[in-house]
């Protein structure tokens, strides 16, 4: 074997692809604090910090579990259901591409995938805000990131049975959107409704946070979808552009529905429409034409809107509607690929409308299997955690708010009447002026 053929066999790192993927990884990481802002605006002011902190905690917990075992289970080997333990502790994850198709360092590929695991864990928190104990959430996040996210990531991205069948999922309709949405439903059922749910109006406390969070999420989503081709090729460019098109169309539909129903186009509705549009195009981004991406935005928003109208009329306090915005939208996006995928645009497969009914079958399998797995495992996992420790705050703590209860801070502290406490006082506090004792 001569030197030339030897060189050709060694996978090559492409500098342009690597540069884009480093930027994309940072963009996706930013989506998690952006989600924190979005969620924090939707809750009451006394739970602002706790809601944001669940997203911050997702970064801490999911990054660690991903590096220790999650990445290995998702991306080592091509087992049907689960990967191997070859990359445990990031062993062997280095600067060379992971396989002959990849043009970026393996380490960067791992980092990009880590940001997906992080935001998916953060997404699920939307179902349990304002009442779940912070400690119980940390335990849940730790186990969920491995038992649900890593497994579904293996199915769709890591060479598992869905990927093997040819199911198309560009940027995570299976492991991110459907997994978080249907897990959120299970979490809401196990943890239970907030104590005042259905009895009092529990309103968003800051619509500006919601809009700003949605805007930053959309910005970050260009890395999420645009980076999911792992290069700067045609599929990546297509996904990047569709990430602009579909949410804009979803916004138009949302405005129209809002105007028809209530005669007013709402701001929080618009923020929701941006998220729904981004989720719709997530699985389909690199596979469907820009024209079909517009149709997806216009039509795909309909079931999500209906779900968001219907859910609060039920007893299920799936608080921030993760199921509607992520589960239903991800489901719709995954199925839509099966109808309108075009080999001329994606270089891989046609959908039903272009003569390939098999593709729709592969998509339908994913749309059934992923929600079933995510819901079942999350339900059992939370029941088990609930058997060991309480999942919920006490009624008193729930009334006072999660911020003071679990973080000892308030988002909107006035500082009036606050007295400095110095540790050298031995921890004894001044006696209150009107001590009843």
């Amino acid at each position, binding site marked *: 074997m001569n030197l030339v053929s030897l060189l050709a066999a060694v996978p090559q790192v492409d500098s342009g692809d690597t540069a884009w993927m480093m930027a994309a990884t940072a963009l996706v990481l930013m989506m998690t604090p952006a989600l924190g802002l979005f969620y924090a605006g939707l809750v009451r002011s006394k739970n602002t910090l706790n809601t944001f902190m669940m997203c911050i905690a997702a970064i801490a917990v999911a990054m660690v579990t991903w590096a220790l075992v999650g990445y290995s289970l998702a991306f080592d080997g091509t087992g049907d259901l689960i990967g191997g333990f070859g990359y445990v502790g990031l062993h062997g994850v280095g600067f060379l591409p992971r396989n002959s198709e990849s043009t970026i360092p393996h380490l960067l590929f791992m980092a990009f995938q880590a940001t997906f695991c992080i935001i998916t864990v953060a997404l699920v928190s939307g179902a349990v805000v304002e009442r779940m104990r912070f400690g119980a959430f940390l335990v849940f996040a730790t186990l969920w990131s491995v038992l649900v996210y890593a497994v579904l990531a293996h199915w769709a991205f890591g060479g598992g049975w869905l990927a093997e069948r040819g199911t198309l999922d560009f940027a995570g309709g299976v492991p991110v959107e459907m997994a978080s949405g249907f897990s959120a439903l299970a979490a809401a059922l196990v943890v239970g409704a907030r104590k005042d749910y259905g009895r*009092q109006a529990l309103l968003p406390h800051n619509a500006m946070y919601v809009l700003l969070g949605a805007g930053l999420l959309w910005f970050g989503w260009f890395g999420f979808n645009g980076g999911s081709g792992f290069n700067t090729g045609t599929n990546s460019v297509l996904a990047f552009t569709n990430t602009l098109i579909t949410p804009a169309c979803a916004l138009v539909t949302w405005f129209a529905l809002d105007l028809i129903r209530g005669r007013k186009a709402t701001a929080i509705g618009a923020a929701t429409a941006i998220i729904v549009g981004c989720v719709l195009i997530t699985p389909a981004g690199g596979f469907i034409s820009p024209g079909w991406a517009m149709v997806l935005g216009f039509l795909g928003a309909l079931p999500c809107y209906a779900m968001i109208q219907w859910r609060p009329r039920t007893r299920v306090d799936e608080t921030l509607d993760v199921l509607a915005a992520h589960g239903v939208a991800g489901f719709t996006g995954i199925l839509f690929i099966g109808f309108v995928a075009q080999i001329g645009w994606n270089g891989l497969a046609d959908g039903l409308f272009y003569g390939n009914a098999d593709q729709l079958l592969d998509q339908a399998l994913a749309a059934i299997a992923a929600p079933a797995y995510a819901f079942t495992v999350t339900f059992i996992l939370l029941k088990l955690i609930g058997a060991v420790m309480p999942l919920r705050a006490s009624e008193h703590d729930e*009334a006072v708010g999660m911020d003071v209860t679990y973080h000892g801070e308030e988002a909107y*502290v006035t500082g009036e*009447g606050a007295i400095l406490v110095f540790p050298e006082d031995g921890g004894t506090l001044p006696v209150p002026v*009107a001590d009843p004792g």
Partner: protein
Amino acid sequence: MKLVIGIVRPEKANDVLEALYRAQVRGVSMSRVQGHGGELERVETYRGTTVQMGLAEKVRFEIAVSDEFVQPTVDALCEGARTGEVGDGKIFVLPLDAAVRIRTAETDHGAVTPVDK
């Protein structure tokens, strides 16, 4: 005619409103206030600065009622605001010299009696 002032926990404000509504007490003003009673105070930490929150958030209800409504109003405030812990709040009942409903210039008893639309 009396002015009933009730200072309660903010998290119980909705329960108080419900109890007042059930007692058919309709004219209510409420405001957020900060106060100091006997409650065990909260300690919060901000980046290494530990502070004892000397003032607690409270909600202050002001309700002008005719004499026969004084007891039901006080009962409703107690029922809605009580948790049994220190810091549940106080109720003050003050004599009220005069009341005027601005829209109709009705005075006193007529002014503090809700109108049925």
